[in-house]
């Protein structure tokens, strides 16, 4: 018997008698024989807790985590430090185990957390309306494009090639469903090409989708891009890395209509890609087109302050086929980590963190540019991530560095054939100057070794 169920043999007998059937199998009598499963599932037998722990620990030990190497991998998820108090708070059963707050009288904790989270996201993005979070980053980009489709119905959606490749691919997948075309705006010298954008724009364009900083690490100058899009009445969506938003002009202040992004770097673990959360904030005029849950403040019958899920008529359980989205959850637990993390950083801390990253990133870029065989891929301003061009096969260089306990970053050629020699290097506050210096040393040796190897092969 599983230790997660409680019915004893006596319980089962009493319960069957109360129901008025002779056996448990009688309860399944309505399932026709032809669809009754007539053998045991082909799965290993169950095991006691301690053995399951050992098996999963052995599997986990076969992974090389950020605990095991000094990593400069980023490209959408970042190895920021997660403060200990987040583990404590996320582990509280009152946050971990409830369902969506359908009964607000006994869900005030979760609802108030959503409200505080929405406030923090609104502050970060400079946009007045935030939802209580979506699944994760790239699907949030897809949700923003769907909002644009609902708002203006125009058939052409333009996306910068500087937007995360997973976001661009997700847009393509979803657009097949709701019937828009996705066209790419090329990059020029590491940034979205304004002239090309202008040439592509017409009044069939429903939305222009950008990313800040873009996938190559460049801080985009959003103003002229937004102005061009507005000229033809298109909406502007910007996917943002939330940490640099502590020092960068918020998208809402630049005329962006919808700001979305991957929330992992705000107090969430890497978890091999999830769960995390996607944030989603918009200008006031889109409040009734927002996807997902939104918490709102109100009062109870005694005049006491409280919170509820609000504007629910947008949602699938009420509006069904006319809903603004099919999403029926938020990533409440991950968004909790997000707002606790932002509160932990605080007003000054977020700025200090952003400035530290900008300085270390500048140092890393100049230090690595001095490595023989490595040059910056572009010279746009960067804040936490930058791209190098290597004069050696990138995958092989990465493998050599990993043998030395350093993961130097992401091979850009995976997603950008035009940058087949590109390496994307990311910083967090956990990578200090000594780590950067060591990376320069190891990277230099790896490039030299690969050039030598290539030379020998030739």
């Amino acid at each position, binding site marked *: 018997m599983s230790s997660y169920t409680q019915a004893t043999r006596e319980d089962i007998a009493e319960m069957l008698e109360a129901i008025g059937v002779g056996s448990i199998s009688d309860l399944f009598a309505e399932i026709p024989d032809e669809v009754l499963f007539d053998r045991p599932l082909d799965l290993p037998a169950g095991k006691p807790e301690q053995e399951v722990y050992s098996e999963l620990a052995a599997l986990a030990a076969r992974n090389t985590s950020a605990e095991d190497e000094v990593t400069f991998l980023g490209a959408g998820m970042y190895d920021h430090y997660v403060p200990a108090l987040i583990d404590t708070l996320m582990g509280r059963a009152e946050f971990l185990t409830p369902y969506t707050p359908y009964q607000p009288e006994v869900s005030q904790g979760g609802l108030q957390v959503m409200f505080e989270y929405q406030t923090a996201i609104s502050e970060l993005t400079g946009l007045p309306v935030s939802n209580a979070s979506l699944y994760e980053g790239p699907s949030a980009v897809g949700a923003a494009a769907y909002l644009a489709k609902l708002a203006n119905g125009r058939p052409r959606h333009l996306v910068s090639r500087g937007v995360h490749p997973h976001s661009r691919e997700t847009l393509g997948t979803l657009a097949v469903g709701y019937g828009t075309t996705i066209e790419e705006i090329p990059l020029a010298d590491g940034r979205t090409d304004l002239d090309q954008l202008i040439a592509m724009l017409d009044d069939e364009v429903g939305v222009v989708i950008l990313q800040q900083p873009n996938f190559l690490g460049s801080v985009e100058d959003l103003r002229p891009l937004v102005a061009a899009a507005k000229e033809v009445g298109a909406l502007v969506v910007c996917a943002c890395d939330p940490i640099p938003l502590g020092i960068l002009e918020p998208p809402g202040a630049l005329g962006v209509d919808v700001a979305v992004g991957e929330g992992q770097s705000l107090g969430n673990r890497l978890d091999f890609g999830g769960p995390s959360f996607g944030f989603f904030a918009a200008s006031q005029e889109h409040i*009734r087109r927002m996807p997902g849950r939104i918490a709102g403040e109100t009062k109870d019958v005694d005049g006491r302050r409280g919170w509820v899920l609000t504007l*629910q*008529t947008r949602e699938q359980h*009420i*509006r069904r086929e*006319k809903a603004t989205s099919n999403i029926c959850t938020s990533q409440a637990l991950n968004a909790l980590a997000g707002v606790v993390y932002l509160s932990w950083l605080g007003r000054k801390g977020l700025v200090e963190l952003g400035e530290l990253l900008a300085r270390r990133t500048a140092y890393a870029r100049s230090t690595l540019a001095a490595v023989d065989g490595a040059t910056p891929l572009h010279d746009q301003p960067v804040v936490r991530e930058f791209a190098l061009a290597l004069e050696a096969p990138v995958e092989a260089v990465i493998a050599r560095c990993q043998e030395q306990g350093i993961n130097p970053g992401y091979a850009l050629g995976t997603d950008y054939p035009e940058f087949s020699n590109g390496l994307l290097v990311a910083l967090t506050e956990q990578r200090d100057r000594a780590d950067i210096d060591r990376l320069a040393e190891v990277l230099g040796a790896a490039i030299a070794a690969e050039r030598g190897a290539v030379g020998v092969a030739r």
Partner: protein
Amino acid sequence: MAEASYPEELLYHQEHDWVKIDEDGETATMGITWYAQDALGEVVFFDAPQVGDTVTQDESYAEIESVKAVSEVIAPMSGEVIEVNGAIADDPAVVNEDPYSGGWLVKVRLSSVEERNSLMDSAAYTAMLG
């Protein structure tokens, strides 16, 4: 919300909408009935059409929302919207409190006054409600 009432001077559509045709026979005022607002509950939002929009008999021209329901508003007659009740935006509950005067939804320039022949009078509508 007052007691149920279905004024004699109005015409009714089976989807719980009313229309009051002006004396000139060219324009009319439309809204939802006491029964409709009662079924919907406290109105919180009116997604109104624009002045100049065309409404078509038996088809939806707007949406009314309560906290946990959305209802399409069906046009009892066809025409062009010439005025929208702006007071509802400030106080949506007026649709509940006063569905036949303060809670009117739109004024319409009728395109086919004969459509009135397919509508019910108060007695027939009350009988339909049972």
